[in-house]
């Protein structure tokens, strides 16, 4: 076959791919295609066979004589990531976990196989902790996983590092990675590059500006609020609200003047958010004003809620109209107490400590309102002493607690306690009340669960089994346990999987289901232990 002729035509692989023709040199081939379209009866003197013969020769000449295409502009190379890749076994595991995501789910959470989906976040966290980078070939799958699950993003992006951002700039599917804020946006100017900061602040997209604000704030809080002030009045109300919201991170007394000014904002939502932030700054003037008002209503002598919502209260963010079904006075009282610094109650109640104050009887049915407001204040001011007082005893029936019977509220209060106390409190709760109510509370405990907490959960599961329940009544807790139990607890579980079958079967088949459930739990823990060991750097 002669290729030189085709080479002279300069036909390139690229053109072949895109099916472009039309230059003079292809006149022959184009002529053939034209004749084929119109039909040989109308052109070429009616010999379809001659047309096919010619086309066969041309086709092969075109194929055999292909030349490389002109190269397009190349992307900038990705910056080098100096971090090491994880060890081989960990890389295999990672591949498996990424491939396994989304594979579960069908048929519910039955069977003894470990649930890989839940292990991925832990793998990511551990890998970041050890300072590894994601193997390059797995970066796309990692970005896909992070796209689907926002909870994975911070760790996934940290692991993917500069290679991940490089990919995200090329593929619109992964744009979210560029909005990562603190996770690393190399396009942001350095906080000291005043001109760059100024330009991006004036011209940037909203997300870029939020990220910029965060970066500047981390470097110099005063500079951040100064930057905000330059354009504040020109921002749209919803943007003002979002900017204000971003001040929650690293909130300090330095922010008070800015927030105080925002109390006069045109938008009610902005005013309310500014007031809320100021009340979290217990030394702020607003907190002081609210304390004045609250202390006037609540004291050892009883409760006397405000009778009106005056202009001062309005300016300090008190919302005048109560939601449907609530009395005005109770609504105002709640807002005042919630915003008042908790430290001020000690003197008001003659030196009593929080537990004693909370334990005092409250007259005229105001107890629920007052305690709920104290709960919100404890969470907002991150006050562990008050949180503990409001949580009360874990073993008492929830409804009898001093603070709130709501598990969501209690979970919030728990999150203010130090790790150890939190685990202890929840362990005691589980021992007293079992697992059916404990899900939300377990969710705020630090992973892996402390020994006593893990023990309480496993014991409670065992008790549920003996009582004849089915394991799927506890599927939520089971899932949590797979993620959170210390792998060291696996041996205890393995003993349970071999529990003797001599007990009377209260519920048909339950024993077998429990055995399977415990087996899955044990094998997940085993897998987690192996997985974490694989990530440990060889020393």
């Amino acid at each position, binding site marked *: *076959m002669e290729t030189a002729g085709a080479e002279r035509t300069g036909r390139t692989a690229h053109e072949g791919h*895109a099916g472009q023709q039309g230059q003079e040199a292809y006149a022959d081939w184009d002529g053939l295609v034209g004749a084929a379209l*119109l*039909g040989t009866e109308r052109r070429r003197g009616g010999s379809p066979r001659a047309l096919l013969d010619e086309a066969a020769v041309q*086709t092969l000449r075109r194929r055999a004589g292909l030349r490389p295409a*002109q190269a397009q502009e190349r992307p900038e190379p990705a910056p080098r990531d100096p971090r090491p890749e994880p060890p081989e076994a960990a890389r295999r595991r990672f591949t498996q976990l990424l491939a396994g995501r989304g594979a579960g789910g069908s048929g519910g959470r039955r069977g003894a*196989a470990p649930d890989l989906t839940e292990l991925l976040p832990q793998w990511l966290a551990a890998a970041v902790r050890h300072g590894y980078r994601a193997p390059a070939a797995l970066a*796309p799958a990692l970005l896909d996983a992070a796209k689907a699950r926002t909870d994975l993003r911070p760790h996934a992006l940290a692991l993917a590092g500069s290679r991940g951002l490089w990919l995200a700039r090329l593929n619109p599917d992964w744009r979210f990675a560029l909005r990562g804020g603190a996770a690393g946006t190399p396009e942001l100017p350095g906080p000291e590059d005043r001109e760059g900061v100024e330009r991006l602040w004036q011209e940037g997209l909203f997300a870029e500006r939020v990220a910029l604000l965060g970066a500047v704030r981390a470097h110099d809080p005063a500079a951040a609020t100064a930057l905000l002030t330059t354009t504040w009045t020109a921002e749209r109300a919803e943007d003002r609200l979002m900017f204000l919201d971003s001040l929650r991170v690293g909130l300090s007394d330095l922010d008070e003047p800015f927030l105080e000014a925002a109390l006069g904002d045109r938008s009610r939502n902005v005013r309310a958010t500014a007031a809320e932030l100021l009340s979290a700054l217990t030394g702020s003037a607003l907190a002081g004003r609210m304390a004045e008002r609250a202390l006037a209503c609540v004291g050892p002598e009883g409760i006397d809620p405000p009778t009106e919502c005056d202009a001062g209260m309005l300016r300090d963010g008190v919302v005048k109209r109560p939601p449907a079904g609530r009395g005005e006075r109770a609504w105002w009282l709640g807002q005042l107490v919630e915003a008042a610094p908790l430290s001020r109650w000690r003197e008001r109640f003659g030196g009593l400590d929080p537990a004693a104050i909370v334990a005092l009887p409250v007259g005229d049915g105001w107890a629920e309102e007052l305690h709920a407001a104290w709960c919100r204040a404890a969470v907002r001011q991150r006050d562990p002493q008050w949180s503990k007082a409001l949580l009360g005893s874990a073993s008492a029936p929830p409804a009898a607690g001093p603070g709130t019977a709501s598990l969501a509220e209690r979970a919030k209060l728990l999150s203010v306690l130090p790790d150890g106390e939190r685990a202890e409190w929840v362990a005691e709760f589980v021992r007293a009340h079992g697992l059916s109510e404990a899900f939300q509370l377990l969710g705020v405990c630090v992973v892996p669960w402390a020994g006593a907490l893990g023990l309480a959960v496993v014991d409670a599961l065992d008790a549920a089994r003996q009582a004849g329940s089915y394991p799927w009544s506890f599927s939520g807790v089971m899932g949590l346990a797979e993620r959170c139990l210390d792998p060291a607890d696996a041996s205890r579980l393995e003993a349970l999987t071999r529990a003797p079958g001599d007990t009377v079967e209260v519920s048909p088949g339950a024993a077998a289901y429990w055995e399977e459930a415990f087996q899955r739990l044990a094998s997940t823990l085993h897998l987690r232990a192996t997985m974490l060991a694989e990530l440990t750097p060889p020393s």
Partner: protein
Amino acid sequence: MTEQGVRWTAEQVLALAPDDASRKAGGKLGGAGPWSQTGGSASGAVWGLCKGSGKTPYRTVVDLTGPAYKCSCPSRKFPCKHALGLLLLWAAEGVGDPAPEPEWAGEWLAERAAKAARPAVAKPVDEEAARKRAERRAARIGAGVTELEQRLLDLLRGGLAGQEQAGYGAWEETAARMVDAQAPGLASRVRELATIPGCGPGWPARMLEEFALLHLLDQAWLGVSGLPEQLAATVRTRVGLAPSAEGEAVRDHWLVLSQYDSVSPDGRLITRRIWLRGLAGGRPALVLDFGPPGRPPGLALPVGLVLEAEVRFRPGSAGLRADLGERCAAAVPGGRAPVGVSAEAALEAYGAALREDPWLESWPVVLGPVVPVPGEWGWQLADLEGTSALPVPLAGPGGRSRSGLWQLAAVSGGGPVTVFGEVGHRGFTPLTAWQPDSPEPVALV
């Protein structure tokens, strides 16, 4: 590594499962929980006892070189969930250093070894009857070819312009006639024709190319007795006849360059393509394995492994198609990346191969160093000077999944990589990549 060769990935194991239920059941047994006395040999076998519902545990052995399975469970599925579970366990955690096998596993393994050593006894053939059968079939194919040729000529006489509206029906009928004529190769080419008008601008040129190549095949068949032996064999294979002669056997250390599956348009047949390259001889080989409906192919060769084996090449088809013969030892990791060629040389190799098989769609090459260039209109693999490049087909036959391309981009990070793939008239389809400083191949899925 001191274990049973390179461990497979979980996907490789799960690809062996006969159905979805087995995949799930195998997955459940993939942890250490139910297993005891697991172990493996250096020659590539793993075994273990799996606790089931009964008193005696099941005895499961897998010969990784096959792979072949043996299990004392009553399941008729093959491989059974225990074999899958054992392989998953091995894939995830390994089964430790090589050890002598227990008696129950040893018996079966020894039996297999003995069987492999025995040469297959050829059945006596009734040559006269076979010749008659071949003649009859040749006559039927000849009639089919003549009919097809007539149809092509008729269409060209009236013009292809109406084909955009013609739909699949007419081609489907012609394809059925080719099946009746016992020419499955022609039938599938005809079926392809039906899809061309739907693939966008430039379809008339593509259609004419396919017409021309079909015409060439028709003519070649009609004159097959006058062709040189290799080309005649190619023509017979392309029409759809099984090879008649034994091909050349080549013994070498074969590097597995790629393994990927494709599913037939009706979803019934899975074709696994495995690309090998002889490390000493440099010869490429394509090993195909097929999975019957609902079952994946049995042959699994992870990319990057090197196996010492005899490969038997089928006659014709540019000497690519091959069958894997006797394997001499368990596969081991390859150790280094192959050396790549330029875009120019890759296209030349394809052009040269067309001489032996004008119907060849693509040719396997290792390309590199090249830089993948993602582009809005299409991807390229460009040389380091940034002058010449090969386009990457994004859709249509041979087009790879987008995720594989992004993996390629991720591996390169804008820098040079070595890429194995198939180069043809549509461009270069990347299948496996190597980073500059790593011998470890990345299969682009």
